[in-house]
């Protein structure tokens, strides 16, 4: 049986090439691996090897031919005649079946909103986060915590306080200072079926590990057609702290929120911190959980008992009618303060805490906009390519008819964060700037 030899594609982008030289002639016996010809592409000269064994029957394209399209039959070989490879067929268009109905969606991951009105207790955000981890660790042996100083030192910011004592060194693991390595180890452990919580001392140091967060954790489920789960939580403080300079003061929320395959959560108060961290640990997906050092010590009322909050749902933390302030993390506190001040001026501001940044609760943003017709986004972070710009884009695309004024953003200044006390203060978003922006947006 004659085997057709076709002009090969020698690179991902090659469409045609020059058949520079034949190294065999009619009648030659060739075996697998022998060089048949030299072919020039736009980038290089490549050797074309025989795959099958046999005798060159006919050379159809002479050497020196330019612009030979990939797939053109350039020669034929007669095979040994034993069973085996039939002559390869040219690529034929393969019909695509009509789209089947999408697979049934798995049930929503989280329990409904914590019941309001029940008994509450005051606790700090730091304690709430610790309790969330401890409760999940009691419930599921697959959950463990690893990171720098999380065990014996009780956490660089004391978030893992008491965990080593209760769960022991098998499940509360001090790592060396090696973010890239332990982010990869955590991700691999999740792929293997465990449920790691990886603490970064701060998210500034996770930049060394971002390859594993994005390329390994976020994408593998998709690339594996749904086989490779990666239920991991990467958590730690994010954003500006106080006077720690440019390398230790950055908000990474927009970075991670741009990545399909990740869940990104950035809570503000203690109840959300607890309820959302529990949901994050239970989630079958990789979660980036962004905390804020300046908020760790703040106390809030937290419902007593089991709270697990839904991922992907914003919360109206203050109802209002004149304007909507959208924020997340530490910006929520500033927005609430600004709203109080604005109330005394006769502006009734609604404040929405996004809580989850990916997937973003567009509905909550647009519903509020439809009622107030004015919006200001507050973000402790740089203005360019930010969560604020995303909210503005959503309003342009889906809320344009509801807008009575352009959406404004109040962010940090567009500079690396300075150390000097006065300059740092100038760089970071604050209440007076929010108040001023809201006044402008409301034409006051």
């Amino acid at each position, binding site marked *: 049986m004659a085997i057709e030899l076709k002009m090969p594609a020698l690179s991902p982008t090659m469409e045609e090439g020059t058949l520079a030289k034949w190294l065999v002639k009619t009648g030659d016996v060739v075996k697998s691996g022998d060089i048949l010809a030299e072919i020039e592409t736009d980038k290089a000269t490549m050797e074309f090897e025989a795959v099958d064994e046999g005798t060159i029957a006919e050379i159809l394209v002479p050497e020196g031919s330019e612009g030979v399209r990939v797939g053109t039959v350039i020669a034929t070989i007669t095979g040994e005649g034993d069973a085996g490879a039939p002559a390869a067929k040219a690529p034929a268009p393969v019909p695509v079946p009509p789209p089947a109905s999408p697979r049934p969606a798995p049930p929503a991951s989280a329990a409904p909103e914590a019941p309001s009105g029940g008994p509450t207790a005051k606790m700090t955000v730091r304690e709430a986060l610790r309790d969330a981890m401890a409760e999940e660790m009691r419930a599921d042996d697959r959950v463990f915590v690893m990171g720098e100083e999380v065990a014996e030192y009780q956490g660089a910011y004391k978030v893992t306080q008491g965990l080593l004592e209760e769960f022991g060194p098998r499940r509360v693991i001090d790592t060396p200072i090696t973010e890239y390595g332990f982010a990869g180890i955590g991700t691999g452990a999740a792929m293997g079926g465990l449920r790691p919580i990886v603490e970064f001392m701060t998210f500034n140091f996770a930049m060394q590990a971002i390859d594993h967060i994005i390329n390994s954790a976020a994408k593998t489920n998709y690339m*594996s057609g749904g086989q490779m789960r990666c239920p991991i939580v990467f958590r730690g403080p994010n954003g500006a702290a106080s006077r720690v300079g440019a390398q230790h003061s950055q908000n990474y929320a927009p970075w991670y929120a741009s990545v399909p395959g990740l869940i990104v959560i950035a809570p503000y108060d203690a109840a959300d911190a607890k309820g959302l961290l529990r949901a994050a640990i239970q989630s079958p997906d990789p979660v980036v959980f962004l905390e804020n050092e300046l908020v760790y010590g703040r106390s809030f009322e937290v419902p007593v008992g089991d709270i697990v909050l839904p991922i992907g749902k914003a919360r109206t933390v203050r109802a209002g009618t004149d304007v909507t302030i959208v924020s997340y993390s530490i910006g929520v506190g500033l927005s609430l303060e600004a709203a109080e001040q604005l109330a005394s001026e006769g502006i009734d501001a609604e404040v929405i805490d996004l809580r989850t940044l990916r997937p973003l609760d567009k509905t909550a943003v647009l519903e509020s906009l439809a009622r107030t017709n004015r919006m200001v986004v507050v973000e402790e972070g740089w203005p360019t390519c930010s969560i604020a710009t995303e909210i503005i884009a959503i309003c342009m695309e889906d809320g344009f008819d509801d807008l009575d004024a352009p959406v404004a953003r109040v962010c940090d200044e567009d500079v690396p964060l300075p150390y000097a006390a006065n300059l740092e203060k100038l760089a970071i978003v604050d209440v007076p700037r929010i108040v001023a922006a809201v006044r402008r947006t409301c034409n006051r």
Partner: protein
Amino acid sequence: MAKGPILAKAPAKASEGSALAQAKRYKASQDELLRFYRDMLLIRRFEERAGQLYGLGFIGGFCHLYIGQEAVAVGLQSALTPGKDSVITGYRDHGHMLAYGIDPKVIMAELTGRAAGISLGKGGSMHMFSTEHRFYGGHGIVGAQVPLGTGLAFGHKYSGDGGVCMAYFGDGAANQGQVYEAFNMAALWKLPIIFVIENNGYAMGTKVDRSSAETDFHLRGTAFRIPGIQVNGMDVLEVRGAANVAVDYVRGGNGPLLMELKTYRYRGHSMSDPAKYRSREEVQDVREKSDAIEAVKRDLAAVGVDEEALKAIDKEIRQIVAEAADFAESSPEPAPHELYTDVLVGTY
């Protein structure tokens, strides 16, 4: 008081005198020899066909063939148990999958980007997985599989399932910083992992001595007290003999072990590599003198297996590969709605 600088002793050839140094060429039964022959031949023929399908435009993007290195995956993984022991590697992954008993059809269909592919056509040559076999990929970032594999080993130890992890990487990958981060933690926590450096002499166009200060890769664990063994990766029986020693050591709770397998890739780095950094003669020389499949043929002849028996295997393998290629060419592409599936597992 100063006594002058202390000169570190040259690192000992890992664990000389210990059990590790006792690795011997494996004494295979005739059946086992035939099995090695068959498994290596399957990889060789599968990869040849993949190269051909690439040339025909059925396979796109990056496609890295394993031709020449077959004895490494076959010899090492024959000492492991699929479904119990985990395996992870880089982008040159077709051979490791075949060596772990994964169906050639669904591998080939992944290469052609079809719905029947093992990743539903959404991963491609570099991103294939079978959690059922505990084959964890298939990773495109050079070196990433080393900490990931260390994490799999962490899981084996944490859950006490008795499994070990085998993490493969190249001589080029061995220069990535994250590899040493993983070495340190694997040794510190005594994780059950075999680090396998497939030293095929080149990282793309860079010969090892142009990129590596220490080219004896089995010594690379010395700073972490990880013992290393250097093995001729072109002899499947030597590979299997070393694998037995390594698996016993690691399963025995002694912590990680490093293996350097000296091997050679016959084809370009990927399909689009003109391979101008080495001579044709160099490649031909290895093929003629050191080919692993020819070596096992000689071993088979020595135990009296005749040409006919080998011909029958060749025929069977050609059939399997032809069927896989037919399947991969004729299966439909993924349905458009698959674009949006498996981004997240939960709904939020």
